[in-house]
């Protein structure tokens, strides 16, 4: 019973949604958006579970003076301050909503949350450099290929690429007067190579992976719908 009821629910829901994809008539037509609305409502309430988990975890650490309890205290106080400012903005007749322009809650969001998010996102640049350094180190043929492709794409993406190509052309022309690479250089050869790499080589590999993912997704769905795959049900 503990297993068969969820399996029946999964099968029935899946069949209804598949039917809804092909049948626009009521009651199937808007079934998907209706189910998504249900999911949104349920997930909204589950944030209380998240809040419970978060506060319980950090309050326990604060009361037990566990390792790094000071950070937990900052987190709990920040949580309370955000909630407090949200309620204040809502009750204040000047704003009437936490999301009103100039409301203290929005001030907190605009001048604290967004800069913190941006700072974290900006750190990605440094992580890309360290990861790229390791990935592009020439260890074997594949790494060399990756390095060459990456350099070509990088040069092709910046205006400097055209200047570099023209400089190479000038040098070649000085050595071999018959070779007029400068003329070819006006065609922005690095940009053309970059476009080819991105739209042909990379795109085909991405599409191959995408087709595999789609088939894997269908196989996984069938396993779940038919009740063959049950490991997700603890």
């Amino acid at each position, binding site marked *: 019973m503990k297993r068969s009821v969820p399996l029946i629910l999964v099968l029935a829901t899946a069949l209804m949604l598949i039917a809804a994809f092909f049948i*626009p008539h009521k009651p199937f037509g808007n079934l998907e958006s209706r189910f998504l609305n249900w999911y949104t409502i349920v997930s909204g309430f589950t944030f209380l579970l998240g809040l419970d988990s*978060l506060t319980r975890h950090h309050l326990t650490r604060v009361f037990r003076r566990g*390792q790094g309890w000071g950070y937990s205290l900052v987190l709990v106080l920040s949580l309370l301050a955000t909630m407090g400012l949200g309620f204040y903005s809502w009750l204040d007749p000047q704003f009437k909503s936490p999301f009103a322009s100039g409301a203290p809650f929005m001030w907190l969001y605009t001048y604290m949350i967004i800069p913190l998010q941006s700072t974290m996102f900006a750190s990605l640049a440094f992580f890309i450099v*360290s990861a790229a350094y390791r990935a592009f180190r020439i260890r074997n043929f594949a790494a060399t290929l990756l390095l060459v492709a990456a350099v070509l794409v990088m040069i092709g993406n910046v205006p400097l690429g055209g200047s570099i190509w023209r400089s190479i052309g000038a040098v070649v022309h000085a050595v071999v007067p018959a070779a007029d690479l400068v003329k070819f250089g006006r065609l922005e050869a690095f940009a053309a190579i970059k476009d080819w790499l991105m739209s042909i080589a990379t795109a085909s590999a991405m599409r191959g992976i995408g087709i595999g993912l789609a088939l894997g997704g269908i196989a996984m769905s069938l396993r779940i719908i038919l009740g*063959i795959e049950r490991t997700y049900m603890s």
Partner: protein
Amino acid sequence: MIPPLLLAAVLGLMPPASVKASDAPNDQGQSIIVTWAAPEGESIPITGYRVLRSCTPDTGFTEVGLEPAATVEYADNEVTDGTRYWYVVEARSEADSARSAVVGPVVSRAQWFNTARVNILVVTAVICALFMYYLQRARKGAKMYVRKIAGLDAIDDALGRATEMGKPILFSFGLGYITDMVVIAALPLLRKIAKKSAEYSTRLIVPNSDPIVMTAAQETVKEAYTEMGRPDFYNPDNVTFLTSDQFGYAAGVDGIILREKPGAIFWLGCFYAESLIMAETGHSVGAIQLAGTTETTQLPFFVAACDYTMIGEEIYAASCYLRPEPVLMGTLKGEDFIRFWLIVLTTATVLLGTAGAVLSNQAPVLNQVFETVVRWATPAY
């Protein structure tokens, strides 16, 4: 015959031509599509079109839509199914307006089948039939082979190494929701890792960005520990909610990595721009890292930062690989068979298109066949 320009100069603004109104196809009703053409040879600049509707053919026309001059179609989504409607389209200029003849009656109805999706239905039916065929073959005991997946084979090594070093294990679903297939596919892996962590008495940390996923993860870990006879080993403080904010989650996970210095990290789920921030931090503490995601844009980052990366559908195959039961293997075999035929069909279509382009004068039928195939295979939404 009087030239249109002369006619326009004499009569003023011309009304829209070829006005048609019809029930919107393949919808759930309550929608009528009105189309028209710009007045032929109109010299006066048109500023827009007014669509008017009435329930009687002669009177009572009221405005239902106003469209700019470049638009020649209007979807009237405020109609009642089964009611007869008549339409008029009025062309408007700065100083003048001209109405078309009345068209109708039109009745909106909901359709019982979306004919634009016949191709998807056929392909889905074929794929499902093939899966069922291989499922039956597997049930009858046919032997099936699955190639080695290095990332899955490395799970035991990573767990063993973390245990030897006396360090915890970290598992992350990223920003995945329970509605994401990859999160469901990752749950059996969490189960396996939790079982091993109970066996080795190694702490397993699972920070979550979604409360529903957190609940699923808590249940999975608890069940795995109970199965291994170690229910006492479960600590809810190790499977917690962090935040649903993307970079807040990345900052929280980075903090855990730097404080706890895990020996093994598993990135299995949905990851976006935060993937490299977290995986590089994991690399900086010397953890052995295993990643698997369906986000193809993040795969290069994981390949660069992690020791093992499951590419594409490998993560979907995880449960079959970990539990090689014939029925589960049957679906994998079916997947491979369909992939093979997709390669054959794609190659054949590319060759057909190329031949059609090269021999467009000698054999135009090739191009026609190619265009028919492409049109049929392109899904409509």
